[in-house]
């Protein structure tokens, strides 16, 4: 929804923004380290999905995580929180 005002009179009292996917562009390009999920180790506990500060992990039907690389900034919180070390942070441009 576009609610960009034209004049001062149409402006809100304080800047307000409405949620939209990727309002700041594809922030995944900021990433240096990429989280990789090893689905054979994953126990479907959803902790990574809960902790992701950018909502860049999608909870799939079977509760397994799918990382949205368009918006994942590579902070590594998911890898740090994973209790079974199923997520590895890999340097971008490296296999």
């Amino acid at each position, binding site marked *: 929804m576009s609610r960009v005002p034209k004049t*001062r009179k149409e*402006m*809100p*009292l*304080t*800047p*307000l*923004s*409405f*949620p939209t996917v990727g309002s700041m562009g594809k922030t995944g390009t900021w990433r240096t380290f990429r989280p990789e999920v090893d689905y054979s180790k994953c126990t479907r506990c959803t902790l990574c999905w809960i902790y992701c500060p950018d909502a860049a992990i999608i909870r799939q039907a079977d509760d397994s995580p799918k990382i949205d690389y368009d918006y994942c900034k590579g902070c590594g919180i998911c890898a740090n929180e994973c209790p079974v070390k199923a997520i590895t942070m890999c340097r971008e441009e490296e296999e």
Partner: protein
Amino acid sequence: MAQMIIDTANHIAGYAAKAARVKVVAAYPITPQTTVVEKIAEFVEEGKMDIEYIRVESEHSAMMACIGAAVTGVRTFTATSAHGLALMHEALHWASGSRLPIVMVVVNRAMGAPWSIMPDFSDSLSQRDTGWLQFYCADNQEVFDTIIQTYKLCENERVFLPAMVCLEGFILSHTYMPVKIPKQEEIDAFLPPYKSGWTLDLNDPISHANLVSPEWFMEFRYMIQEAMENAKQLIPKIDREYRERFGVEHGGLIEKYRCEDADLLLLTMGTMGSDAKIAVDNLRKEGLKVGSARVRVFRPFPTEEIGKLAERAQMLTSIDRHISFGMEGFLATEIKASVFNRKDKPLVAGYIAGLGGRDVTSGTLEKIAKKSLKWMRDGKVEKETTWVDLRE
């Protein structure tokens, strides 16, 4: 029937928060403010206030908690002093920039070093440019009334800004005085429930106070300035409405006493304004035409009213319980700025008095007035700023 009680200004501030039906109080204790939030804690404990009372780990957190509460659309209150207020500094800007009508009691205390718990205005005046309205009280009744009035003012859609209600530590904070507390139904009729300008709502999610590019930033600043100007129009109206309902008023922006025919005006803030009235009465007995103008509201500053006072008076003397190091008292600067473009501008002299709680009596003010009258007759201010009762 209104209830008459005898209590300290700090406890009275607690009674006012209760009467205003605040919903969230987040606070951290600091001398001489502590008994404000202690009184509120007592009310909560006794079941007389049904609120969210948040004990936080610092004043910065107290203000941030108030901001968090206010964005959900509830009436919010806190209180602090001196270093606690300084620690809040960053958060104060977030509150005004987010246009949240939080009311905070500031129990004035001198900033250290040297360490002090005694009053001057160095704490609240250091926060002059944070976008908060600032009221300065002269007695306990005014503390109660101003808290109720500022909620009504700040929650007005033409204002939506936070306010500090300042009272001097110990001179008022711990001093017992009789105060009239109106009936709750009457206060409710004067101060209806808070309707916020914008609210965080799970069903229509927004984020607020976001990053703003240069193409939009200035407009947000201008809107705060506009709100301050609106407040200046509303303050006298709200004070008058309060008098009509409760029989007491405090002079709107400036409490004027025997100013109509005065040649010299003593301009003060806070409790010094009460002593100034006694000084004026004594000087009048000697045939000296002196009046008192107590600046009750420092932000927005009543520039126009100062200008009006300058139409009649030949000299304005400010007595500041504050010093802006490297310049002069803030009040002196503001008064000069208010009259500078007038053709008939009066002489303005500044005095620094009462720092760190040093006593300022009506006698002190009489001496200041007499010296000012001499300068007035000579047509020349001998000294821009004079420190009162300073050791040689």
